């Protein structure tokens, strides 16, 4: 399997918080979840992979190229933030269309692409609305549509389901898996929800206090290991799954 992302000996200091010595490979077409408590460094890891930070030690490469050497506009990554980061001064249509306009795509083609994406994500009815008037689920679908309409090589999502109600969450899990099949992109997402990580991901990375302590197949998430911090974390959060450890 080819590595889409390679992280070698990566460390970064942000104020008093430090992400320490991360080593990780994420493969082509894989769905990878980063699991950890609040403040464990999940989002910083995700932003580092996206090339948000310029001062760090170690290496982050996307398809063999150092991420900070690729100009942001040419990285071909889709990024969905926890609060979805929609452009508040643009309608849903203009948000989705933004990247296509930048690519100077023909107006008719743009319309067609947006319509296709809106149909896949069931947001045809809100295309003329501004983000301020949308519900959490609608915002999330819009953010996904905006990222996916450009067929990115990789989709990075920061706790994308945390603001959704259980029913919407379930339907979004299915939708994301469907999208993964259709678009064939690598998906990396951050979550603190064990269930979500197991349902969605092929592999799961566990973050504890700024360190990536373990990488497991999602089916082996609750397997007992030598690292007491991981055991405590999985135990303390899974409740019903305690017996498995």
């Amino acid at each position, binding site marked *: 399997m080819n590595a889409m992302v390679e992280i070698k000996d990566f460390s970064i200091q942000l104020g008093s918080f430090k992400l320490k010595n991360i080593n990780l490979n994420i493969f082509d077409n894989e769905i990878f979840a980063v699991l950890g408590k609040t403040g464990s460094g999940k989002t910083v890891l995700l932003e580092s992979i996206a090339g948000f930070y310029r001062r760090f030690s170690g290496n982050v490469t996307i398809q063999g190229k150092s991420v900070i050497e690729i100009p942001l*506009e040419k990285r071909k990554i889709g990024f969905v933030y926890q609060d979805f*980061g929609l*452009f508040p*001064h643009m309608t849903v249509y203009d948000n989705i269309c*933004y*990247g296509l306009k930048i*690519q100077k795509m023909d107006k008719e083609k743009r319309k067609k692409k947006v319509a296709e994406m809106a149909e896949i994500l069931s947001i045809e009815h809100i295309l003329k609305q501004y983000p*301020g*008037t949308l519900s959490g689920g609608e915002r999330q679908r819009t953010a996904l549509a905006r990222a996916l309409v450009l067929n990115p090589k990789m989709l990075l999502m920061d706790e994308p389901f945390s603001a959704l109600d259980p029913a919407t969450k379930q339907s979004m899990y299915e939708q994301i898996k469907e999208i993964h099949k259709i678009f064939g992109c690598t998906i990396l997402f951050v979550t603190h929800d064990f269930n979500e990580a197991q349902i969605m991901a092929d592999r799961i990375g566990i973050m504890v206090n700024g360190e990536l302590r373990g990488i497991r197949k999602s089916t082996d998430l609750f397997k007992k290991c030598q690292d007491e911090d991981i055991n405590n974390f999985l135990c303390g959060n899974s409740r019903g799954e305690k017996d498995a450890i």
Partner: protein
Amino acid sequence: MKKRTHLFNLFEIISIITAAVVVVFTSVLILTIIVRGFPYLQEAFLSEEIQFSIKLSLYTASIATFICMFLGVPTAYALTRTSFPFKKLCQIIIELPLSMPYLVLGLSLLLIFSSDLGKALKELGFRVVFDKNGIILAQTVVNLPYVIRFIRTAFQEVDERLEFISGSLGASKWKRFTTITVPLSKNAIIATIILTWSRCLGEFGATLMLVGATRMKTETLTTSIYLNLATGDNGAAMASATIILIISFTSLFITNWLGRKNSKESRMKDVTLR
């Protein structure tokens, strides 16, 4: 719970009373200008001298505002979105004139443009001292730090993650600036333009030092007030003040109107916080 509500109401009442005191005090100031200036207003509008000062004020304030924005926007961008050596020091230097008396700024300009440099510029056809170019320069120097401060604050308030997302969608830095940063700080930019223009209209100290106060030559509206007061013509002075007031009121009204017009729809639009 009841006690809390009571305290909250007391705080609201004190705030409203304080606001009322400020409104009354400001209204008295404004009314004094209007009451004393209004009887002379028609005469002032017909006076060739006042017409000259209105034209000169509008011309110099407009050019100075344009220059302030032309220099202020890129500077504010550099201070908020780029990193370069001694950035903090540069920011302090840029904003230092905010705390300096305008007379001192005007005096510095006078010293610079009375030197060999000023004389060389004069020979090249760019007169500053005792010329309307000097008025524009004085208004620019006085207001540029304000413009940079306002625009810098506006740019800082734009969520940089939105620019990052815009970049990840393929936008170059210029596109990110024009499609995200500027539209999201549009209201602040418009307000800055109008307030700067109003401040340029009212500028006096630095202008007086650099170009003096010569009737029908360097006579802006504020200089006209000064000259008329010096000759004891209080009515004409208050009429000029009333004209400045009318222009300022109009510009503030436009600022507020544009601010309302540009506010985006939100789920909170009909909610009153209680």
